[in-house]
């Protein structure tokens, strides 16, 4: 299938997370390590363009124009996003689903177009799926075992006080 052959590389491409072009929201130090008390590797001006490489906690490693690498606060970064056309409209995977169902005979329900406003408004209740969903639910105990298995430790953290709600 020609269309599939054309689109397949798009699908197989890794998630766009490495070397993502980004902009720094405000003037900031470029840190040598991901910590606020780390020495600076350089300075970044407001709206400086960088390539985001990886995230570690609240820090993102970036490559500045000129090639210097260092760490900035992840919340200070905004990605290219708005208005710029990117390959791989998520709608494409819809197309591929149909194709895949046709060729491999997997159980993807045909006719599923996904969740848009119109479908949500016109949906009829599906009791069978609701029942299935209930059958997959986890007990408190089993979730505790699952957490322990991932070395997750429950912490005592208060909700923020602001907002008045």
């Amino acid at each position, binding site marked *: 299938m020609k269309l599939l052959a054309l689109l397949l590389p798009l699908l197989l491409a890794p998630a*766009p997370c490495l070397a*993502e072009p980004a902009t720094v929201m405000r003037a900031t130090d470029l840190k040598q390590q991901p910590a606020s008390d780390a020495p600076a590797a350089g300075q970044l001006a407001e709206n400086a363009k960088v390539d985001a490489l990886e995230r570690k*906690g*609240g820090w993102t490693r970036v490559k500045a124009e000129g090639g210097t690498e260092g760490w900035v606060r*992840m*919340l200070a970064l*905004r*990605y*290219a*996003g708005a*208005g*710029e*056309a*990117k390959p791989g*409209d*998520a*709608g494409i995977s*819809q197309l591929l*689903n149909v194709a*895949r169902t046709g060729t491999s005979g*997997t159980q*993807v329900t045909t006719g*599923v177009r*996904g*969740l*848009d*406003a119109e479908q*949500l*408004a016109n*949906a*009829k*209740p*599906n009791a069978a*799926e*609701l029942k299935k*969903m*209930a059958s*997959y*639910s*986890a007990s*408190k105990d*089993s*979730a*505790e075992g*699952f*957490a322990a298995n*991932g*070395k*997750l*430790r*429950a*912490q*005592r*953290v*208060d*909700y*923020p006080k*602001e*907002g008045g*709600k």
Partner: protein
Amino acid sequence: MNRHCVILLFALAAAAPAQAQFNLRNLDINKLVDTAKNVGKATTEIGEKEEIEIGQDLAARLLGAAPLVANEAMQRYLNQVGRWLASQTERPDLPWRFGVLEAPQLNAFATPGGSIFITRGLLERMKSEAELAGVLAHEIAHVLRKHHLKAIQKGAQVELAGTAVTQLARQDRNTASREKLLSTGSELFARGLDKSDELEADRLGVVIAARGGYDAYGLPSVLQTLQAMNPQDSGVALMFKTHPAPGERLDALEKMQPTLDAYAAQPQLTERFAATARPRR
């Protein structure tokens, strides 16, 4: 009866003795005062049982728009993560249920009483269990604070002022009034909540994920992924329409920086996530 009238009558109902007798032209003030009182009561009296029932009905409708992804291991994994997070909250004993919807769009939904959904499209863009936890915690916060339930009540009151919403909730699920209440709920998924509800759910979501022992930056990280997407992409159209822009949500989360940083070194569980939530297709 318009909204202003209802508000005015609230004031009257509060100020006037219960048996006050007015006659203003042809308006039956007593009846209207009673109605206003009923509406007032309705805002506080939808019990947990009705909350869960309404939520289940709405969940069935969402599943009518898109079924579950046919992957039991994935669905059970989602329920483990979600149930663990819900256990860290003030409503640990709701019938919490989580489902991945077979839809390419990127979105997540909560219905009253503890049913929570995420689309396959959104799951596929995530990189770790901590990111998944951040999104589920945001949806859990909507349930905890009854954001949808309150919006449904508010919407139904405007449309149905004159009948107590509580009565509607208790009526047979096949009656026309119950149907109206539910359609108000369904519309919410296409229309969205108040911006303040979304930003509150972001703040609480960060806290709940941190309580669960996850890297608290999971939710901001997903918001950055969304922020990097083209808003014209059909996959994000509905979510962008029903939520504040991801950049704005990230700005608002700067207030949470102390909490985020205090729990940034907790596990992300990238490998466990990849093994179960992203099976080779």
